[in-house]
């Protein structure tokens, strides 16, 4: 058996390393929560969904769409600057070496099947990614964001397979996020089918997504010709045989053009030793065989430097894993600030609310038409478990409202209370808030509290200024208040908790509601 065939090359190891480093929040897969610390304000260079439970930083493409979407309020300088920085330093070397989606595509291509080789058709198709960039990443987000004030990151929403695979599958796999399944509908089905098609195409055709669809690759391609890092050709050695181009699996016209991902395969292909992978004047990989091979001492020195770099990189990875899983302050997600709980909280029969990790509807939803009516009517609530699951007594809390008043849950005993968790950056949340307003107008007795997620809460007040949702009570969460952890809210929004007149949870799910559903749920809680 050829053992060398199974030995991963340096590039594969770097790809694996990058994928692990981008997703160093490993405990996210275990507890079902995403990382919410300050590093999320920075983008990683490669394609990695920021809603993936493991992700420690943001996706550059998602951030770009979000920034363009909000261009009417805030100019997107930050994300453009980050992309320009990555582009000029690394260019499409990012695609070839440190993109997790590139790694997945290459692994799929390893499956032994007949392969589709590049040609005129694939070359033409390679321009398709510029269409995706222009339409889904730029035009639609700007048109809807600036023109209509609607949140619509079109590429993320309709196409991105990274979001489906890393984000949705990564998030939904955890039992704590079971109610998020209720949100899945046409958008998810569309994206799931697209992911299956792209995945299948990658088996037969090398890096299908990267070559024909990826808008991020299209952006970095603009920088490729003058990027500091990349595959460079020595014109004094090149005899123009074209073997580099004909053996390359990407649709390049020449080495180092906008399609070149600097994978470095051509370095070994070139009999003239004319090609090398460089970072400025430093040669990262050069010709090691043939008539123009680098001298032995130079190769040895380079390998030694490589070993030192790997040592530093592994130390950094170990530190990152330790930091994001055990040390980082943002991991105290489940900590419930005592200040948020009022003194009148009823005696608890079980542990604190953070222990009730699974907000669920009461029964298997496909078998029940009205999932909120399984608990028996209760008159004495003191025997109930305090928590956020259906049938639990929601813990009492106090919070300041945006209108200057104070909200205290126990003051609303005798009323149906609806607590909605939302965010200005969450399109379904913003879309459903008018239904809550409509409900409050139709049924003045209901108490509706809309709590904004702590992320981006500063901008919520301005956002609400011209919305006219005057009948709702709005509160902002913060790290100090810790309302979301107290009520065991999930990372995904929107989430709605409905309490009957005794404060018992009758509904709790991470799913957007229509007016009809909301009204039905309200009436059920009222009849409880």
């Amino acid at each position, binding site marked *: 058996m050829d053992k060398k065939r199974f030995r991963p090359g340096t590039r594969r190891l770097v790809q694996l390393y990058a994928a692990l480093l981008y997703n160093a929040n490993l405990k996210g897969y275990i507890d079902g929560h995403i990382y*919410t610390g300050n590093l999320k304000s920075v983008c990683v260079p490669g394609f990695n*969904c*920021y*809603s993936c439970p493991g992700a420690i*930083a943001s996706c550059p493409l998602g*951030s770009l769409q*979000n920034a363009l979407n909000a261009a009417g309020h805030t100019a997107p*300088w*930050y994300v453009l*600057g*980050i992309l320009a*920085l990555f582009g000029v330093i690394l260019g499409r070397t990012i695609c070839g070496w440190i993109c997790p989606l590139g790694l997945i595509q290459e692994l799929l291509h*390893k499956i*032994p*099947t*007949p392969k589709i*080789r*590049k*040609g005129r058709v694939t070359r033409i198709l390679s321009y398709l990614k510029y269409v995706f960039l222009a339409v889904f990443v730029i035009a639609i987000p700007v048109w809807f964001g600036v023109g209509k004030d609607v949140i*619509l990151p079109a590429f993320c929403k309709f196409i*991105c397979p990274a*979001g489906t695979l890393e*984000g*949705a599958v990564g*998030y939904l796999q955890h039992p704590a996020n*079971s109610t998020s*399944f209720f*949100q899945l*509908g*046409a*958008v998810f*089905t569309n994206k799931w*089918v697209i992911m299956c*098609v792209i995945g299948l195409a990658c*088996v037969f055709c090398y890096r299908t997504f990267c070559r024909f669809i990826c808008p991020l690759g299209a952006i970095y391609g603009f920088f490729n*010709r*003058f990027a500091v890092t990349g595959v460079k*050709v020595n*014109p004094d050695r090149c005899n*123009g*045989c*074209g*073997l580099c*181009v004909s053996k390359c699996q990407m649709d390049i*016209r020449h080495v180092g053009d906008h399609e070149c991902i600097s994978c470095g395969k051509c370095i070994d292909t070139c009999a003239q030793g004319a090609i090398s992978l460089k970072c400025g004047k430093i040669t990262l990989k050069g010709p090691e065989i043939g008539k123009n091979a680098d001298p032995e001492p130079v190769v040895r020195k380079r390998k030694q430097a490589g070993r030192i770099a790997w040592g530093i990189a592994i130390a950094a990875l170990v530190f990152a894993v330790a930091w994001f899983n055990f040390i980082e302050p943002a991991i105290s997600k489940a900590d419930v600030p005592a200040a948020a709980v009022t003194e009148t909280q009823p005696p608890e029969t079980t542990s604190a609310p953070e222990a009730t990790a699974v907000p669920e509807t009461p029964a298997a939803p*496909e078998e029940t*038409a009205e*999932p909120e009516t399984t608990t028996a009517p209760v008159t004495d609530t003191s025997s109930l478990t305090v928590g956020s699951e259906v049938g639990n007594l929601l813990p009492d809390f106090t919070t300041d409202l945006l209108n200057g008043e104070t909200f205290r849950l126990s003051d609303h005993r005798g009323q149906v209370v609806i607590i909605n968790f939302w*965010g*200005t*950056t*969450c399109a379904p949340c913003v879309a459903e808030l008018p239904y809550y307003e409509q409900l409050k107008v139709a049924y003045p007795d209901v108490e509706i509290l809309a709590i904004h997620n702590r*992320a*981006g809460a500063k*901008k919520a007040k301005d956002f609400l200024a011209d919305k006219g949702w005057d009948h709702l009570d709005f509160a902002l969460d913060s790290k100090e208040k810790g309302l979301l952890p107290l009520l065991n809210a*999930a*990372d995904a929004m929107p989430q709605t908790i409905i309490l009957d007149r005794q404060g018992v949870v009758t509904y709790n799910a991470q799913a*957007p509601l229509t007016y*009809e*559903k909301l009204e039905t749920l309200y009436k059920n809680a009222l009849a409880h």
Partner: protein
Amino acid sequence: MERKKIFLITQSLLCALVAGLLAGIALYLYFEGAAKQAGGDLFYYSFTREKAGRALLIVLPVFAVSLGLTIAGLVLGIRDENADKPVRDPHGMRDAGALREKAVHQKATSKVITLRVAVLVLAAALIVAGILNGGLEDVLAKGAAICTECIGLG
């Protein structure tokens, strides 16, 4: 037909079957749910954890066979040999002179270096401007909560 070819074609069919099943089941669940919702069942959910689990159980045997074949193929070194063959004159326009010319252009001339520095300075200026205008906080706000649109939930 040679054995290798049969192996590769079988594996192709299995991959297509896995992808087709995964996509087909999602479509089935969605349309079934949509029909029930259209029929007035407001709280009928197209997708649930239980349904997803049952669907995966259908795909699992095919996936397992495909995975087994993949491992066997990799160990035995079965692959499409044509995949590595050079594509002759892929764009029908390359000649030795043109390729060498491109290589000369690519060399880090003073023009390229100036461009790099200019873009680096511009990038730094944009980042600083972005931090000052609140762009950094916007990225954090989107990244620190699940982006339901991004992952196909909303």
